[in-house]
């Protein structure tokens, strides 16, 4: 352990819950995070489907209050695909009324947040140093990078944007695609308008298998996600050394407090890689790990 650089400056963040967890359950999840999890930043808000928002939104102020009292930085995440008049109106209200910093997941939110500090979320395309620099100049306090960027690309991005806050997706199923169509509803023979909120049945998303019965993707309403669980535990210390300041863990229906503790321990050098990986393997039993995007190969692959 002595050879490892201990860097307690690196921050862990908890991404917004992407799935349709029942509102009370989601609230209790955040209360537990506030009380028990060594996480620095907590993102909260409905990113995936605006139809889900009315159930959870009333709980947000109370949750944010508790998170802040526990010393967490609170960020409100905006919707990733904004189309309808209602969605636009709700986004306007979110920007106007909200006392917390916002994560913009669509250019529309960035337009509304003009001249106010904000975070550029992972659903906004940032592939190169020019775009990254543009967003910083435009008021971004931090930028969360898209999932498909390789470690090499991240290194090149950081080379020309030193001493800035930058966040990568380190853990959890990766959101891969957005659509106007709801595949959860479609899979149940329903339309998006009459969806009956069937996405609530799958707290970690609905498995999509190939004709060979091989697990392939995960459907979460209008969002399509990886089947594999992204896990960069073995890479985060190097990434931190390169200049990545924040590491995002996406909530899954597992003991997230222990997931967060494991990542924290890895960053602080208080456990070995092997111990950390074993703990995560015990916690995640529903799908295999992957890190292919980081290694510049197929995203579904695990490069040892």
């Amino acid at each position, binding site marked *: 352990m002595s050879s490892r650089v201990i860097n307690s400056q690196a921050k862990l963040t908890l991404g917004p819950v992407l799935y349709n967890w029942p509102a009370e359950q989601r609230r209790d999840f955040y209360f537990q995070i506030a009380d028990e999890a060594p996480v620095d930043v907590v993102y909260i808000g409905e990113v995936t489907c605006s139809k889900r928002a009315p159930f959870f939104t009333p709980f947000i102020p109370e949750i944010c209050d508790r998170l802040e009292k526990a010393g967490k930085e609170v960020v409100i995440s905006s919707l990733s695909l904004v189309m309808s008049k209602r969605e636009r109106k709700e986004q306007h209200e979110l920007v106007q009324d909200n006392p917390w910093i916002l994560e913009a997941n*669509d250019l529309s939110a960035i*337009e509304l947040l003009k001249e106010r500090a904000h975070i550029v979320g992972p659903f906004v395309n940032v592939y*190169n*140093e*020019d775009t990254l620099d543009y967003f910083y100049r435009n008021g971004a306090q931090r930028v969360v990078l898209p999932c498909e960027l390789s470690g090499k690309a991240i290194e090149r991005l950081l080379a020309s944007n030193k001493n800035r806050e930058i966040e990568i997706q380190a853990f959890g199923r990766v959101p891969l695609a957005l659509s106007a169509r709801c595949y959860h509803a479609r899979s149940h023979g329903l339309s998006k308008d009459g969806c009956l909120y069937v996405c609530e049945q799958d707290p970690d998303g609905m498995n999509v*298998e190939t*004709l*060979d019965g091989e697990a392939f*993707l995960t459907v979460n309403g209008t969002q399509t996600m990886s089947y594999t669980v992204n896990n960069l535990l073995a890479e985060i210390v190097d990434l931190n050394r390169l200049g990545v300041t924040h590491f995002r863990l996406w909530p899954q229906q597992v003991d997230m407090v222990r997931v967060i503790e494991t990542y924290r321990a890895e960053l602080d050098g208080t456990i070995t890689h092997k111990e950390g990986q074993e703990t995560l393997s015990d916690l995640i039993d529903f799908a295999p790990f992957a890190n292919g995007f980081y290694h510049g190969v197929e995203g*579904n692959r695990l490069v040892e």
Partner: protein
Amino acid sequence: MELVCPAGTPASLRAALDAGADVVYVGFRDETNARNFPGLNFSPEELRESLQKAHDMGRQVYVAINTYPQAGNLDPWYKAVDNAARIGVDAVILADIGLLDYAKRQHPELRRHLSVQASASNPESINFYRSAFDVQRVVLPRVLTVREIGELIKEIDVETEVFAFGGMCVMAEGRCSLSSYATGKSPNMNGVCSPASHVEYEQRRGKLVSRLGEFTINSFPNDEAAGYPTLCKGRFVGHTGDPSYLFEEPTSLNVMMMLPELIQAGVRALKIEGRQRGKAYVYQVVSGYRKAIDAAMKGEPVPFIDMGNITEGTRSTAGAYEKNWR
């Protein structure tokens, strides 16, 4: 209503012009455009000659530079914009914010269009690109209904272009990493989706199985035509346990019968997809749309023009333009 047509080669460009295209859009022969396929696209010299031909006929040429420049390797994209400006094309179609910024600073007089790959689906996003980079036109993502398009047009002061015919993304364009999840190559980074280099067909007990990377995308009885395994147009097993086209069926977009509504909505240009298609295909589609637009603009009923033999899976859909698609 402007008819904007694809060309992957100078011969296709000529076919599009002959068939009545108002504008032909093309890409350079490298990773800077979203149809980065072997044997396709234009060298600067070919573009110069093609542009001359188009201008002689009173038509225009746009250049799509609509992938996302690679970190640490921006030069090919800068060069593509510089070349397009020097050759004097009528517009460039861009998606990346850094590149839009570059084009505006270096070539303020070069007309800039926002690519569908930027997925600007609402007035606020479009206004962002308008005020920051002075884009003159936005190509709308295929996520909006015709009614929503009409409402959107009332709130922006930028021209709109919509997809009318051809291959159809079911995901919001430019916001999809399914291809790189399965193959390591994506539209945003590499200008390819479900690339042929990762496609295999396998014979299995009287069936032809199509595969992409490690994954089976579809399976066809031997007497059925096998489709190309585009990832989101495959058959998969979801909730019911039965195989189905979970994301989208292998159909083509065709909005010909909705032309009067699109004109009414205030759409400025119609776009045909398919720079990877041959010149015969381009000629047929463009001719059909030329007739249909001319009729619709005169207020005449849109004639029925059968495109069945050239649509994917020989079926077509109005896709997201109709609300029940969702």
